[in-house]
């Protein structure tokens, strides 16, 4: 029963590996999605509540059966509670990542993490000024305090235009602290607390703002301080970056804390010598998912692929170690790695996996652990089974690393040339395309087609996360890709030597997009919701993506989702998200699974925003 791999991915490297997986009987996420069919309709509609043990309760969407849970919760209440619990989980994931980075920064300030240094002194000084503190230690403490803050405001939220902050205050959704808002969601959604769908959703928005303008932004800013603010650099993307004659180490997950050390350890002469002694010609570190994005944009470390390629990478048989930290790591990797010589190495005390070797990472001893991991990988090279090795001969060059600072620098020191191009209409507007992979959408099909449609219509695209990697593989992150853009955008890109799609980093780096949007809005003297800009997550699947969507809309950006969120069981909540929110935060969601239609929705929105601004 061979499946048509073209119905699973548009990426030739992935198609090649999917074909191999089928022949070898190796199970992937696509097979497991098939085995899950049909998926539970109550779950799909958000109509199942497991929040107390009088339940589980379900509401019959067709009105024949139960229309209330045991406690009396209606479909509207259940859907709203479930949705904001997803936001809580997503905001928690991003923010706990941010906390980890802040913790490392604090240890560095205390001299307790000798493996790390401050790489971007100027950025740290800007942050000290923003916080009004005099020392590195005081900055570390002030930022750590944001997580446990009780009465707000979170400092970085004040980077938003004043009008936006006023609106948040007026609506009562200006976050008081990062952890507090997440905790309050869990409290409010407990049996018998908040049972007003609108009030629930507003709390969801508040927690999401604490993520985007709080936890995520802290992660981005301090990662830049510790590891350097990204500047444009060239690299390569896709499974073809794995090397047949080198020790291949994949760093996968989300944090750069460990992967930065792995990259450094793998470059050390003693490790390279050891690799040569073991018969390899060297050591090749490749990234995967957002850990991949982090080391890609700071060091040009090649990236093996996005979320749905993690299993395919192991199936090449050429990976000595799959080293993972946190988030979006499939527990399936353990059993799969067991079919090969690949060592699946977990490193975070927060994230353990069946079938993994746990080599726990702590900041104080970061370099030692990194060296031990690299050595484990190198010594595993001898265990390769040459008969099982199959590396697709597919990789694409990409230009990455467009932090806000890098964009301003590429523009010659100010945003004016970009504003000029937007005003003249050469660039119609900005499209922020982000998010995961999801086997419910043909892999990369949603991402690549949406982005291509946008640039064709002169929309400058900024990208992060798995979309960024899909674009990299599709050749959209190259200055030459300007030829795929409309005449206006093409002219701007050629003049500046930049791609029409700007890689801004990992998923926490959507905070960079917020900073850029705020700067543009401030320069134009308007709110973010007035900008000719739109967002999209064409292949989203994670709870983090729900939080992202919520903070992007809360910040005033119209956002199109490519997979249906579990809210259709409540027409009231669905209506609030897709239209009611416009009157509240000046932006709303749309759901459109077809990337071509999604692009039209974004372009129509951008054009209507231009008309409102008189452009």
């Amino acid at each position, binding site marked *: 029963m061979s499946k048509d791999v073209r119905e699973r991915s548009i990426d030739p490297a992935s198609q090649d590996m999917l074909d191999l997986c089928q022949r070898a009987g190796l199970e992937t996420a696509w097979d497991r999605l098939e085995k899950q069919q*049909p998926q*539970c*309709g*109550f779950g*799909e*509609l958000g109509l199942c509540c497991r929040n107390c043990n009088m339940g589980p309760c*379900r509401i019959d*969407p*067709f*009105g*024949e*059966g139960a229309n209330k849970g045991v406690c009396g919760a209606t479909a509207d209440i259940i859907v709203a509670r479930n949705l904001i619990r997803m936001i809580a989980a997503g905001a928690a994931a991003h923010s706990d990542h941010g906390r980890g980075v802040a913790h490392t920064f604090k240890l560095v300030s205390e001299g307790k993490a000798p493996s790390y240094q401050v790489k971007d002194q100027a950025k740290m000084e800007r942050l000290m000024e923003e916080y009004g503190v005099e020392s590195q230690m005081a900055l570390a403490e002030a930022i750590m305090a944001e997580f446990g803050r009780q009465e707000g405001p979170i400092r970085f939220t004040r980077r938003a235009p004043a009008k936006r902050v006023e609106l948040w205050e007026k609506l009562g959704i200006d976050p008081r602290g990062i952890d507090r808002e997440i905790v309050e969601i869990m409290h409010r959604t407990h049996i018998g607390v908040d049972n007003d769908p609108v009030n629930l959703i507003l709390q969801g928005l508040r927690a999401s703002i604490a993520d985007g303008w709080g936890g995520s932004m802290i992660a981005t800013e301090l990662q830049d301080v510790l590891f350097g603010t990204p500047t444009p650099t060239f690299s390569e993307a896709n499974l073809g970056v794995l090397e047949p004659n080198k020790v291949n180490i994949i760093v996968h997950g989300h944090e750069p804390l460990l992967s930065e050390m792995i990259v450094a350890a793998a470059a050390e002469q003693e490790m390279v010598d050891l690799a040569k002694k073991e018969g390899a010609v060297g050591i090749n570190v490749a990234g995967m998912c957002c850990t991949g994005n982090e080391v890609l944009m700071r060091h040009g470390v090649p990236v093996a692929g996005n979320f749905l390629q993690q299993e395919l990478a192991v199936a090449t048989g050429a990976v000595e170690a799959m080293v993972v930290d946190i988030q979006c790591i499939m527990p399936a990797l353990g059993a799969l790695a067991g079919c090969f010589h690949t060592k699946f190495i977990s490193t975070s005390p927060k994230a353990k996996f069946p079938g993994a070797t746990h080599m726990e990472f702590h900041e104080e001893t970061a370099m030692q652990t990194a060296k031990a991991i690299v050595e484990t990988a190198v010594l595993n090279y001898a265990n390769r089974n040459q008969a099982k090795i199959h590396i697709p001969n597919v990789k694409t060059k990409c230009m990455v690393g467009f932090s806000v600072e890098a964009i301003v620098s590429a523009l010659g020191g100010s945003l004016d040339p970009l504003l000029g191009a937007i005003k003249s209409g050469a660039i119609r507007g900005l499209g922020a395309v982000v998010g995961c992979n999801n086997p419910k959408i043909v892999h990369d099909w949603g991402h690549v087609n949406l982005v291509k449609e946008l640039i064709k219509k002169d929309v400058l695209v900024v990208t992060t996360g798995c979309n960024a990697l899909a674009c990299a593989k599709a050749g959209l992150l190259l200055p030459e890709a300007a030829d795929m853009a409309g005449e206006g955008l093409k002219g701007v890109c050629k003049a500046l030597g930049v791609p029409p799609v700007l890689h801004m980093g990992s998923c926490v780096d959507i905070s960079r997009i917020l900073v850029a949007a705020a700067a543009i809005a401030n320069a134009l003297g308007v709110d973010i919701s007035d900008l000719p800009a739109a967002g999209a997550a064409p292949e989203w699947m994670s709870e983090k993506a729900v939080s992202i969507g919520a903070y992007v809309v809360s910040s005033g950006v119209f956002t199109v989702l490519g997979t*249906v969120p579990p809210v*259709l*069981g409540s*027409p009231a909540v669905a209506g609030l998200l897709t239209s009611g929110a416009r009157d509240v935060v000046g932006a709303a969601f749309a759901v459109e699974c077809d990337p071509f239609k999604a692009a039209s929705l974004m372009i129509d929105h951008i054009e209507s925003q231009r008309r409102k601004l008189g452009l």
Partner: protein
Amino acid sequence: MKEVFVRLDRCLGCKSCEMACAVEHSAAKSLFSAVSEKPRPVRRVYVEMAEGQKMPLVCRHCEDAPCVAVCRTGAMVQDPVTGIVDRIQENCVGCWMCAMVCPYGVIGRHTEVRMAVKCDRCKSLDVPACVAACPTGTLIFATQREFVEMMRKEAAARIAREAKGLAKA
């Protein structure tokens, strides 16, 4: 002829069969559209709980079906070849004689219109929607011969295991 059989020990009460049935009998045949359809799509299979046991109930399409026998308007008809009992929409007047005589209580009613609704065995599908949706294999679409053969094999395996256990002891 294939029938819908129920393996009584397997039902978890997830109601996926009910959901899939309503969707299959909607105009759009997709969940996300069906939930906002008017008239509301109606299910023809019912998950009940009795004596601590969860159980899906669906029309047995009985030989000489009582619902057909009592129908005074010719709305309830049985196909002489397939044995499938179906209802001709235009003929139904909603007198509920069929509902009164059905021993399984699987004749429902339309939400907005006075009209009986019942399982039509999803004639346009190879496998009825309820069976396709069942995640635990509670619902089986098979001929009576196939079904009892499966049950026999399961029974034989069980007996064999028990016998081995006894021999060891």
